């Protein structure tokens, strides 16, 4: 038989055209090449989607979700027409209406609250990737009640980072993959920044450097980690502080770094019971003081040549005593409370492992120092001829943040980074433009709604202290429906979307008129206590009217939430829409690259299905804004200012010269960062592969928090308007202020109910306290922890109905540690009843040993309501899949006084999903389906039985 034996076309035609846009299968926002080929009906059809090699985020690779985009785009669950509810809420009974009718109705519903009380509109946008626009819309409308899903996702990570060092992981920073000597990843982290982290892990592996995974569950990234720390959930902070304890005991902290970039030397007033206790000592001009090492006297921290002390006591004014932050810090963390021996039991981490990892960290940071021959000048004007790095890097995301102690845990992790001197240095953590952006450079939250008027500023922001809370005149009642920026959660920078429906239902702090939501599956996997939320949406008052009177919802698919809407605005798929991934919003930059990108309709919806009549949500919002006559969206003559979202993207200016897109500005498209609007900007983006990038200058690549070159470049590119001082807050003074409010020493005084909690949880130094749910129950009743994580193939995706992905994850067992299986008598395939303080569910179990001995877990958001997403009512998602959400209440178990706190972090309001405590027993009935079950949601369309995608091209 010969070498060349068969006829085979080795160069078949691939596609007619490649269109480059941005993926939206999750929050990663990778660049994609969409291959378009003519289909059987002569219309353009998607042949193949691959990663864009030139794109800064994914550099050509693409994950399972991105590759399943075809099935997402052609999903039979797509909505094709505006829908008006005809049956009762929850059933999914609708009639199709025309867009004009839908827009008129929506305008009418929205007009009334705007004229009477704008707070009566609650506008929450779930997995929104256009928050700079939707937030701006809310501001123009005048309601403070706006947020996206950060509050139930990872706000602790974002707020913990920004309050501590003006950055955070994922969108605002990343490990220096190509220089790091040791990389440590905490908790569920597969679900943010997925492709860049995988690329980074590969690089670290290729370079033969060590990866340590800290996670109760040893899957995903923890499976490839060289060492696994099988920690008990909620104990990460304790573990980190034990590492700090060890590092201090070894004397392995970077004092030079601390002196240069942090408030380690700031003097903290020691005046227990006084109104200034815990605040920084200041001189009369308000300048913060340090203690001069030589003289022992107080001096301005900014005074040239002063060598500040890190320990001791300073009598800085008559009878006033203050001590350096570092002294307080060393006292706190060197105490036996944080010794490995004392934390090992709670954390589940052996003493040997804590000590060894502390050694590894110290060794990597101080013995494997990296030096890059790159001169640079710092903000004080000091010239450095080298960039010296402490090559230890970290990443964490939802795992450590979704606890009621998450904010402090995230702070603790950043404290560890800072003590090692590894923030924005070679081999450490690196800021991504436009970060660093510390709190003073962030907007404040805005409330104080006035009928018919816009808010004075954006609804969401970063409070500087108690003075920025959004409270009514009584100093207690929250202004916002979700109780964000109130005593419940003073620093709730992302809002608290998970509380909106239950608060609106309870009328606490008030009832709303219209609930307007986008891409937020609140009646299912995006709520705690899903069954309860469904009931709240269905509930009627004594007049027979719904307690939440009007619900407008926009989604591309027939999700569980669609069934609860009164008016449904059908959104496009991601291949049919305009979008901008803006620097004003949640950027896609990499440490070396400032970048933004667009989506554009690579296919026209009208060609993508019979009778398909859908509009991108942002375009609809702009049209509604114009119909309502909102400022910024309306011309003086009352006509619409923007034709659609694409028009807004190119022509809106947030401030002169700065708009949603940074690239190709100016009339000629040659200005970047700043410049007049360019009418052809979108075409320029398309031409450039769907994105824009500008490279950070070599001398600005590191130490951006204190780098003159960076500041200059950032100002030039429109990222900031002037230099921003960024002092890393080892000790956070704002937290001390809240403690003073709790002590009644500072206005506004915290209400009696909150005092104790604020005193405990608002420690100005990162701390650890037990997660709340575990404190509210009897551990004997609920001895185990239960967690969820999203599988890599489904993370953050709106893709549960995806024909390909649902074959991979169409059902989810509960993974139970072997020892618990043996104790309870469970084997693979058995059915178990899992109970929490809130309820019980019935689930199939699977034994697993690579997991913390007290922790069971499952894949999240696989379970579907029967009939939802136009799947067969008997789909495995409905019958063999389940949600842990049914066990989690949005409120904690009642306290002795009957008070029920929100199941959230007391600082940021982050939903504490991972605090869940459970018990398990073998179910009495060993047959399926999973419980609870709900009546089938009506399908909007009958799905095809079989798929033979691409047959016409074979």
């Amino acid at each position, binding site marked *: 038989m010969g070498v060349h034996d068969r006829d085979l076309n080795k160069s078949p035609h691939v596609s007619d055209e490649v269109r480059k846009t941005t993926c939206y299968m999750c929050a990663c926002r990778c660049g994609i090449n969409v291959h378009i080929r003519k289909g059987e009906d002569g219309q353009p059809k998607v042949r193949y989607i691959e990663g864009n090699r030139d794109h800064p985020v994914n550099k050509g690779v693409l994950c399972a979700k991105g590759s399943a985009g075809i099935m997402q785009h052609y999903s039979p669950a797509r909505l094709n027409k505006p829908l008006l509810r005809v049956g009762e809420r929850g059933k999914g009974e609708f009639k199709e209406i025309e867009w004009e009718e839908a827009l008129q109705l929506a305008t009418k519903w929205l007009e009334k609250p705007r004229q009477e009380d704008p707070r009566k509109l609650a506008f929450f946008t779930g997995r929104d990737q256009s928050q700079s626009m939707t937030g701006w819309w809310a501001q123009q409308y005048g309601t403070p009640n706006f947020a996206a899903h950060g509050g139930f996702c990872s706000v602790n990570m974002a707020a913990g980072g920004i309050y501590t060092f003006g950055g955070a992981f994922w969108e605002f920073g990343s490990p220096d993959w190509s220089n790091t000597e040791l990389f440590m990843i905490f908790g569920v982290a597969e679900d943010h920044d997925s492709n860049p982290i*995988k690329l980074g892990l590969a690089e670290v592996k290729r370079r033969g450097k060590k990866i340590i995974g800290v996670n109760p569950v040893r899957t995903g990234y923890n499976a490839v980690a060289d060492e696994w720390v099988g920690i008990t959930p909620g104990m990460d902070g304790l573990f980190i502080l034990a590492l700090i304890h060890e590092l201090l005991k070894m004397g392995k902290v970077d004092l030079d770094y601390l002196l240069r970039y942090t408030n380690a030397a700031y003097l903290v007033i020691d005046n227990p019971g006084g109104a200034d206790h815990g605040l920084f000592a200041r001189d009369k001009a308000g300048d913060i003081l340090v203690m001069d090492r030589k003289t022992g006297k107080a001096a301005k921290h900014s005074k040239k040549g002063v060598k500040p002390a890190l320990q001791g006591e300073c009598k800085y004014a008559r009878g006033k005593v203050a001590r350096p932050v570092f002294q307080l810090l060393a006292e706190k963390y060197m105490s036996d409370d944080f010794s490995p021996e004392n934390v090992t039991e709670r954390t589940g981490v052996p003493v040997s492992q804590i000590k060894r990892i502390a050694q590894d960290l110290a060794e990597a940071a101080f013995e494997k120092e990296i030096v890059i021959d790159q001169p640079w000048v710092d903000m004080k004007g000091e010239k450095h001829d080298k960039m010296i790095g402490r090559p230890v890097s970290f990443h964490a995301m939802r795992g450590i943040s979704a606890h009621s102690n998450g904010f402090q845990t995230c702070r603790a992790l950043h404290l560890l980074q800072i003590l090692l001197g590894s923030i924005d240095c070679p081999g450490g953590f690196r800021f991504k433009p436009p970060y660093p952006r510390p709190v003073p450079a962030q907007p404040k939250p805005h409330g104080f709604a006035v009928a018919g008027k816009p808010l004075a500023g954006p609804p969401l922001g970063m409070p500087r202290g108690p003075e920025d809370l959004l409270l009514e005149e009584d100093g207690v009642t929250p202004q916002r429906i979700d109780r964000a920026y109130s005593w419940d959660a003073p620093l709730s920078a992302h809002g608290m979307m998970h509380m909106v429906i239950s608060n609106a239902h309870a009328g606490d702090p008030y009832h709303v008129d219209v609930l307007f939501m986008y891409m937020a599956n609140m009646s299912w996997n995006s709520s705690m206590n899903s069954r309860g939320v469904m009931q709240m949406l269905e509930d009627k008052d004594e007049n027979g009217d719904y307690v939440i009177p009007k619900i407008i919802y926009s989604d591309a698919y027939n999700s569980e939430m669609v069934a609860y809407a009164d008016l449904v605005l059908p959104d496009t798929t991601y291949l049919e829409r305009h979008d901008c991934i803006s620097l004003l919003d949640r950027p896609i930059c990499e440490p070396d690259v400032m970048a933004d990108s667009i989506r554009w309709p690579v296919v026209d919806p009208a060609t993508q299905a019979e009778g398909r009549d859908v509009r991108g949500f942002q375009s609809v919002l702009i049209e509604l804004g114009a119909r309502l006559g909102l400022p910024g969206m309306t011309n003086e003559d009352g006509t619409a200012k923007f034709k659609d979202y694409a028009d807004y993207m190119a022509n809106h200016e947030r401030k002169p010269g700065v708009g949603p897109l940074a690239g190709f500005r100016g009339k000629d498209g040659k200005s970047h960062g700043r410049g007049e609007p360019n009418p052809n900007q979108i075409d320029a983006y398309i031409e450039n592969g769907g994105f824009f990038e500008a490279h950070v200058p070599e001398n600005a690549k590191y130490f951006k928090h204190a780098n003159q070159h960076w500041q200059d470049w950032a100002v030039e590119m429109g990222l900031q308007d002037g230099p921003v001082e960024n002092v890393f807050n080892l000790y956070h003074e704002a937290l001390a202020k809240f403690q003073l409010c709790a002590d009644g020493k500072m206005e506004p005084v915290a209400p009696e109910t909150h005092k104790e909690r604020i005193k405990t949880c608002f420690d100005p130094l990162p701390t650890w306290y037990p997660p709340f749910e575990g404190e509210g129950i009897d551990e004997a009743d609920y001895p185990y922890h239960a967690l969820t994580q999203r599988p890599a193939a489904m993370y953050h995706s709106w893709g549960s109905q995806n024909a390909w992905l649902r074959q991979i994850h169409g059902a989810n067992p509960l993974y139970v540690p072997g020892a618990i299986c043996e104790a309870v008598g469970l084997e693979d395939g058995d059915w178990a009843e899992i109970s929490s303080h809130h309820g019980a569910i019935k689930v199939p179990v699977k034994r697993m040993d690579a997991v913390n001995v007290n922790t069971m877990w499952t894949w999240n958001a696989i379970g579907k309501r029967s009939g939802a997403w136009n799947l067969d009512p008997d789909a495995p998602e409905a019958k063999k899949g389940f949600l842990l959400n049914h066990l989690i209440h949005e409120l904690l178990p009642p306290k002795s006084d009957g008070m029920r706190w929100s199941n959230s972090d007391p600082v940021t309001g982050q939903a504490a999903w991972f605090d869940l405590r459970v018990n398990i027993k073998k179910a009495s009935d060993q047959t399926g389906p999973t419980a609870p079950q709900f009546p089938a949601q009506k399908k909007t369309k009958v799905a095809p039985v079989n798929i033979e995608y691409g047959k016409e091209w074979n």
Partner: protein
Amino acid sequence: MTSLPTETTGKKLGLVIDLDTCVGCHACVVNCKEWNTGGYGAPLSDLDAYGADPVGSWLNRIHTFEVTPEDAPAQIVHFPKSCLHCDDAPCVTVCPTGASYKRGEDGIVLVDEDMCIGCGLCAWACPYGAREMDPVENVMKKCTLCVDRIYNDNLPEEDRVPACVRTCPAEARHFGDLGDPNSDVSKLVAERGGMDLMPEQGTKPVNKYLPPRPKTAAAVEPKETKTKKLDSKGFLGWLDKTLEKL
């Protein structure tokens, strides 16, 4: 003719899969499906795609194994698996029609689907589960090593690699000529102790698997260090001394 090729070029194209870095994300699995459903041969169909029992054909799948050492906690290994393009491919010789064949020029094992009667015997002969009958088209589907990509003049040169390799975010998949001892893939195999799956089956797989690197167990004690542990007094001394130098 379903005998194995008697004349070959010595070229053995195949994959090297790194079990040390695969995070089990299924990117390769889905991108493979996506490329191939519109590519070589019949589409990769999905039966009952939105129903109670969806079953489709796939050319690459990822298993997840739990491996428990005697003296350390259990660990997880993600395990991608597709056709290994065996030198001694039993799936080829059992084929009654000649549809299944191994190319002499590069060793790729292919199915000429127009000749396939869908008897399934080749799938039975394969110990690895590398072949799947398409549930709608009823022909045998298998990994083609993207033979319609790797030589395709319509694609940019850098893209002429299998779809799974191009898309893998974790660099866990490498493509090349395992017949050439100097190729990058062969060197990788030599360096990392690349292994055959089920060598006892005598199939001589071309694809190799790189084993996971050893893990550090939690119980490993910290090494004795020169650094003396500081008590609070010693700490202050250290602090002063260190600050002196700054």
